[in-house]
């Protein structure tokens, strides 16, 4: 492996390939930061353009876009409460609160450094552990995936907010929305109301934008402030350097990276789940869990680190077995095939320069993210907040409208945005949390389909769900996550009594 890495290094460091990684990172930041455009969309646009190019040049752009886009979503989430990607919802919970407290620059700094650390460690894991970690992911069947989805849903306990009943209602609304569309197990169309637009369910981008972007825009209009954010508040080093506070963040970075890498390796589980799990873990272990959701930078660090750590790790089963760990990894697989590179063990033996070069490019793009994301993109996007709120509000609507339209090129989605936006505003005014809705929409269908598959395979025997040691471990983890807040509440009441 060392020989292959050393042999690939000169190719990766060739000026043209370095430029490709830089270009991809910038494009990824842009794509991630614009609501409605996802990394998957960016890659889907990019791949046909790379046809006929040198494989390492093309893969360099893809690596840059993956890591850049993953962080890019955090920028509007922190500054405007508009999640650029589904994975940036957990970042928004504390990031936007920090912006409201005048700590936008510091929140962005925490996000970029944490994202870089997660992405870099994930790339190292991809290089070092790829062959051996593949064996672990092979131990996962439908029953294990069902429990992984439930494990993700259990983290909802940390996102419920102050009112348990309202949090639970929000989670159930998400699960119900997740049932919309064609049930893959039976082919039954559920809650489509005869509309073709709902055949694949409610589009997550439309839902995300309506839930998280519309309420703050309406609130800006309600306040009608003629002032923007002061220039001083956007000075990146005003609140100090995150790297100087490394001791504070080190435990969060270490645990979130491990969580992100493990989730990334599991096919189908990656993306948003890793940032929620990392966020939940950080909150659970914090001596001040009540400060999460109120502007705690460790919340931003955990979410972004978990999100970044998921990236390269999701390529471990993709490159070795041809099983993508996430939607983005699936598109990258398509990109490999476009260049005549068939994923699997043979890829490592037939094209070591390309495959190890690509892994090094993932590491390189993580480093470039610090430079491009921290120094350039963050400063440029931060300036948006200096506009008076009465001007910023309609400007956000411009981006939201085109972003939502661009997903399916359908006016229907814009009318849907309007309808859900009214609903979301009322929910927000009445203190119903929005994050559990998203978690329910993402994980509900995974849990339902994997449960159905596991029961079909076992002939309807429910004991099959807990028949493997791996299932038992995940069940224990789920129970642990669910019981810790209850234990905390019980302890709190006892000490109060």
């Amino acid at each position: 492996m060392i020989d292959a890495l050393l042999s690939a290094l000169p190719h990766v460091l060739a000026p043209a390939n370095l430029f490709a990684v830089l270009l991809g990172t910038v494009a990824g930041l842009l794509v991630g930061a614009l609501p409605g455009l996802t990394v998957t969309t960016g890659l889907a646009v990019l791949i046909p353009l790379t046809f006929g190019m040198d494989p390492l040049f093309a893969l360099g752009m893809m690596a840059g876009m993956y890591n850049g886009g993953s962080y890019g979503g955090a920028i509007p989430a922190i500054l405007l409460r508009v999640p650029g990607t589904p994975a940036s919802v957990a970042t928004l919970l504390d990031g936007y609160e920090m912006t409201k407290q005048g700590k936008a620059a510091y929140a962005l700094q925490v996000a970029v450094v944490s994202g870089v650390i997660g992405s870099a460690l994930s790339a190292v894991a991809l290089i070092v552990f790829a062959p051996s970690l593949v064996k672990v992911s092979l131990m996962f069947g439908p029953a294990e995936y069902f429990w992984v989805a439930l494990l993700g849903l259990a983290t909802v306990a940390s996102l419920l907010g102050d009112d348990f009943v309202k949090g639970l209602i929000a989670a159930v609304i998400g699960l119900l929305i997740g049932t919309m569309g064609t049930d893959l197990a039976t082919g039954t169309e559920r809650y489509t109301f005869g509309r073709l637009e709902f055949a694949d369910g409610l589009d997550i981008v439309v839902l995300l934008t309506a839930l998280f972007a519309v309420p703050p825009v309406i609130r800006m209009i309600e306040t009608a402030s003629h002032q923007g954010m002061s220039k001083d508040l956007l000075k990146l080093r005003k609140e100090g350097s995150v790297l100087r506070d490394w001791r504070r963040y080190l435990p969060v970075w270490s645990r979130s990276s491990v969580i992100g890498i493990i989730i990334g390796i599991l096919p189908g589980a990656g993306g948003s789940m890793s940032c929620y799990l990392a966020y939940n873990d950080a909150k659970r272990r914090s001596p001040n869990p009540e400060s999460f959701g109120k502007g705690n930078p460790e919340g931003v660090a955990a979410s972004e680190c978990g999100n970044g750590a998921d990236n390269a790790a999701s390529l471990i089963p993709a490159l070795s077995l041809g099983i993508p760990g996430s939607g983005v990894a699936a598109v990258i697989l398509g990109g490999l095939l476009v260049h005549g590179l068939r994923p699997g063990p043979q890829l490592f033996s037939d094209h070591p320069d390309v495959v190890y070069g690509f892994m090094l490019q993932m590491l390189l793009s993580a480093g470039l993210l610090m430079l491009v994301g921290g120094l350039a993109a963050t400063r440029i996007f931060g300036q948006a907040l200096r506009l008076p709120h009465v001007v910023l509000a309609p400007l956000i609507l411009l981006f939201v409208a085109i972003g939502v339209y661009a997903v399916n090129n359908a006016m229907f989605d814009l009318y849907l945005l309007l309808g859900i936006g009214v609903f979301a505003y009322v929910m927000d005014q009445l203190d119903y949390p929005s994050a559990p809705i998203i978690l329910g929409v993402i994980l509900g269908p995974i849990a339902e389909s994997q449960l159905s598959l596991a029961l079909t395979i076992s002939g309807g025997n429910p004991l099959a769900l807990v028949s493997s040691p791996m299932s038992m471990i995940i069940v224990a983890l789920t129970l642990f996550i669910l019981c810790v807040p209850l234990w905390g509440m019980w302890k709190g009441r006892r000490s109060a009594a």
Partner: protein
Amino acid sequence: MEGHPLALISSPSRRRGELGFAAVLLAVAGLCFVTAGDYPGASGTYPRVLSVLLGCGAIVVLARAWRQNGDNGRVPLMANPGRCLLGFAAMALYVIGIDLLGYILPSFALVVLLPLLLGYRDLRLTVLAALGGIGFILLVFAVILERPMPSDLFDPLLEMLR
């Protein structure tokens, strides 16, 4: 802004908001439960269980809001309902405008007129922000990424840009 006509619209109380929204959730839960009755087997059972959970949650919120008395119940739901209505009306007109005229003209009108209606008089900044925002969006979405835009009065111009 106090003398502005928008400031004269009064907000419903938070308690009424809680009651109304919980009643809507209860109705949605009922509708989902009844609709799921038509789905076969597990396809129907799962959403029915979720509907029951949603209904139970809504009843708890209803009961809590019903019992709520004193000053807490009289807290207004919205800080400024007039401007809130203006915001949603602007959004609705904007979406209808995109449907009828395309993206560019309604976007320009929204960024220039909404601040004006909210009492902001610096037209130079709003026009610059509108042109800058629309220009950036067209550059990224229409020119670089070649994403389809809503059919627009300025389609010939967009074709030239591409």
